[in-house]
């Protein structure tokens, strides 16, 4: 069992925030999270965040949508009840593909967009009624926060770094007990 200190380093601007993140990482301190009012560009590699794989999800959902639309149109137009409409008989999917392109495309976009959006919302636990995830309400307005969970040795070092890089406040928000993983 380890007890860790929760530290909120509050900044008024993104430039010192990035500077602090760099220094913290350089001295081997893990940055638990950063809360910013807007997407700060270039922060991901600095805090050691891997690139999100959500676009890969979108691709998979898109392919699924394409497959479902193809299956639907093949079943309805070719297999279940083939019709001869306007002298253009529906005997084979292959020969009728041009007429099926628009809906194949729309279904691909539909599934890719909605699948990815749902994945995004659930992956970030953004659901109606969820509790605000920012520990300090000012971080959606004009403040930037580095959120740290550290043991006593690291806390001291982090405090120094935060103050030297220009943190407006360094708040100690109690401790958290982390159960060891077996």
């Amino acid at each position, binding site marked *: 069992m380890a007890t860790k200190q929760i530290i909120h380093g509050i900044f008024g601007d993104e*430039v010192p925030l990035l500077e602090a993140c760099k220094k913290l990482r350089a001295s081997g301190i893990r940055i638990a*999270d*950063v*809360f*910013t*009012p*807007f*997407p*700060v*560009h*270039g*922060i991901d590699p600095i805090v050691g*965040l891997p690139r*999100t794989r*959500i*676009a890969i999800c*979108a691709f998979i959902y*898109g392919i699924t949508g394409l497959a479902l639309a193809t299956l639907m149109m093949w079943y*309805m*137009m070719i297999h*279940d*009840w083939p*019709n001869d409409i*306007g002298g*253009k008989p529906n005997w084979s999917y292959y020969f*009728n593909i041009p*007429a*099926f392109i*628009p*809906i194949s*495309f*729309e*279904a691909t*976009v*539909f599934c*890719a*967009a*909605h699948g*990815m*959006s749902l994945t*995004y*919302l659930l*992956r*970030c*636990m*953004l*659901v*109606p*009624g969820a*509790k*605000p*995830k*920012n*520990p300090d*309400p*000012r*971080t*959606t*307005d*004009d403040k930037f926060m580095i959120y740290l969970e550290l043991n006593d040795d690291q806390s001291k070092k982090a405090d120094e770094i935060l103050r030297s890089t220009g943190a407006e406040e360094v708040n100690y928000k109690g401790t958290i007990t982390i159960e060891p993983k077996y």
Partner: protein
Amino acid sequence: MHAESNIREPLILGHKTYRNISDDIIAPIEGKANRTWYILFTISVLGFMWGIGCLSYTIGVGIGAWGSNNGVDWAWDITNFVWWIGIGHAGTLISAVLLLFRQKWRMAINRSAEAMTIFAVLCAAIFVTLHTGRPWLDYMLFPLPNQFGSLWPNFNSPLLWDVFAVSTYATVSIVFWYIGLIPDFAMIRDRVIKPKMKKAYSLLSFGWGGSVRHWSRFEEVSLVLAGLSTPLVFSVHSIVSFDFATSVVPGWHTTIFPPYFVSGAVFSGFAMVLTLMLIVRKVYKLEAYVTVKHVEYMNIVIIVTGSIVGVAYLTELFMAWYSGVEWEQYAFLNRATGPMAWAYWIMMSCNVLSPQFFWFKKLRTSLAFTFVLSIVINIGMWFERFVIIVPTLCRTYLPSTWNTYSPSFIDVGIFVGTIGMFFTLFLLYSRTFPVIAQAELKSILKASGEEHKKAAEQAHH
């Protein structure tokens, strides 16, 4: 940090901090509405109610209540449908295409433009659901099993493609819009004091906190949604044009229709964005964010798309002559000189001539002139759809079926009703939603803000 050339004009004027941006966006939400808002809202709701009355009457007695007749079976309904769908296109173009092209000026207008898209698509949906004649059977548009009838819907038909295109477009636009709104709702949630408002925005913001992981995903999702919406927006109006182009009616059966419809849609959509934004920036005092430069950029898009539309009109005329097909030639002769020539010439002057005024810098940076012209363009684009549909159907192959057309009281009423609904929704939106994507705007403050640009220039010298 990203640096921007000083040659580019600033996109955020004056001395602004992050806090100022929050304050300016939240002001209309926390403040009370003024008298102008209530007057506009009352007029809009009255128009909307009138529309609902006419709509109910149509459902009660059938579409015989409209001016449409045996030959002219598409008239105001489809004209209005295409007009509204077209208006919607600018929202997606601004938020998706301009995002891919990294045009930062989109950030001040994308939120309202997308809201406009959604409201316009809702208005368009009213006409498509009604024009089937028996709207309670509209579920048959969906691919439902045979028990509902003897057949599946016909997937070779552009009308069915339209069902899929418009419903995909509407839902994807709503999702794209909402995902962008979540961080802004969170800002409002953390700022408002009234407990009821706090609760409402807390529910709307889905618990957003602005964690670095969430921002990283947010940006990827926005980018991919933009990438998906870009071909989507082009496909939607292309498919709307297929409704006409795949028919065998002279004047409709042309391959130029998809690009011509798409550019026309963007043209009319930008005009509507201008109409709305010029009011919004004034009423909610957002002149520092929606600057004259923004208006000028939009006017440049209007020159480009308006000129494409002009070239398309002339190409149609040329192809009719060059094809040597008499039916085709007559269709265009009839439009330009027939009994409805007045509509054709309104279309020509509003859509081809009027945007050319924007070649003059003085005119395209004049807000009053832009406002007037944006309304002229929307009138012109309504007449474009009218000219394509009505005069063509009045005189088709058989002279014995030639007919004339005049709209009924009910036709006008439903159209006025959709305009009322559009403005009712927009006015409600502008008082409860963040009308500018404030989080995005904050991210460009350092690079494109006037004060920061000046400071950078001074440091450079």
